[in-house]
């Protein structure tokens, strides 16, 4: 049972470390061959990391990963999207989650910040925002999990969990554990 981490660009190694810390096997997906071997090895979840969404989208399309990944998520594959990963799941990118992301919502690097905020069901969680987005529109099916100054910065819709901040950059493993719980819901006793 493995979790795929999209490794086209960005902070995929940090997610890998975090999942290894939690005793989960991972596979880095850089191309279609990797994706197919993930599917054939009982892959149960996908992480789309932080990085530059334009860069990852470009490579994803060119490598022929766009449609297969989209179909898998629509088919119920649990997915965790952080920062750029949140953007990529929204209506105008992969169009799998009923949200609209606002890119660079806090401006340039001088606007990057740390915060400790309330996360539904988890209590206070340390949050690192790097040139981060927020969610400016969310559909009825979307459960809002955290807000900062009235802006939605974490949400869930069925098999999809997104955060505008980077849980992989802190020592706090609760967001990844929450994702693993979603994975378990879809695949009982898989982990």
């Amino acid at each position, binding site marked *: 049972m493995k979790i795929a981490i999209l490794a086209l660009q960005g902070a995929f190694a*940090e997610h890998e470390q975090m999942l290894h810390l939690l005793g989960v096997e991972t596979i880095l997906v850089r191309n279609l061959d990797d994706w197919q071997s993930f599917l054939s090895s009982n892959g149960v979840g996908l992480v789309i990391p932080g990085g530059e969404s334009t860069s990852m989208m*470009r490579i994803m399309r060119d490598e022929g990963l766009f449609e297969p990944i989209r179909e898998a998520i629509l088919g119920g594959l649990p997915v965790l999207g952080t920062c750029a990963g949140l953007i990529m799941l929204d209506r105008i990118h992969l169009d799998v989650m009923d949200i609209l992301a606002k890119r660079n919502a806090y401006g340039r690097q*001088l606007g990057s910040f740390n915060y400790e905020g309330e996360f539904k069901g988890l209590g206070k969680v340390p949050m690192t925002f790097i040139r981060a987005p927020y969610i400016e529109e969310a559909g009825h099916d979307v459960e809002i999990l955290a807000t900062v100054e009235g802006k939605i910065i974490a949400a869930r819709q069925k098999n999809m969990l997104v955060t505008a901040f980077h849980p992989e950059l802190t020592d706090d493993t609760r967001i990844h554990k929450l994702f693993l719980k979603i994975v378990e819901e879809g695949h009982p006793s898989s982990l």
Partner: protein
Amino acid sequence: MEDRTTLNRQLAQMLKGGVIMDVTTPEQARIAEAAGACAVMALERIPADIRAAGGVSRMSDPKMIKGIQQAVSIPVMAKCRIGHFAEAQILEAIEIDYIDESEVLSPADDIYHIDKRKFKVPFVCGAKDLGEALRRINEGATMIRTKGEPGTGDIIQAIRHMRLMQSEIRRLVSMSEDELYEAAKQLRVPFDLVKFVHENGKLPVVNFAAGGVATPADAALMMQLGAEGVFVGSGIFKSGNPEKRAQAIVKAVTNYNNPAILAELSEDLGEAMVGINESEIELLMAERGK
């Protein structure tokens, strides 16, 4: 560690596995972004032209940099001269995402680098060996790159710097703890930084390759030698088909370990930049600022 330093190191972490491209116009910036660049470096002249023009080369016109900031949504970096903290203050005032205190421009100070801890905006600096890298990090740099030999299209220097840095890191890792004090003395850096490298087998910040990258194969070579991403300066917009070459180098950095994909990417790219051989260079930029 201070919040800002950590956030700035973390921005560099987000750039990993990506390609940062030199651009001189908003149009080039848009081409770079569409090709999948994870950031652009805004400058008036690319290193090959700086080298050809000679004379004193300085920070770019802020208006030109702003034009590029408006053209793209990815991070925008810009260069200031080594030691020229006033240029860095100006770049911070226009909210640049990363400052490259760069040997490509004419150094403003032949002794002191910028005290980068005084700034909120992050800095990337060049280094040819571990000592230089750690000295820059001690001054506050939150990202390191090899110096390479910019504007030549010749990869030999970047290779030399990356190999040297990696072998020095391996050496530190293999030392016993009491040997680290002497190592810190020889490297002219604080003990804590040496100890970090000893314990972790890597720099405390992200390390990119820069200088002389002209082909997808060059980019893959640097990645396999331990670079965490690649700067491409003159190699793209001095080539026959910038758009295609830019895309190919981006994908080569993602799939640097997959020769079959690299072979496909290397096909039919048109003319690479002409390049200058290392032995034909009169000015070694890598020797600036140690």
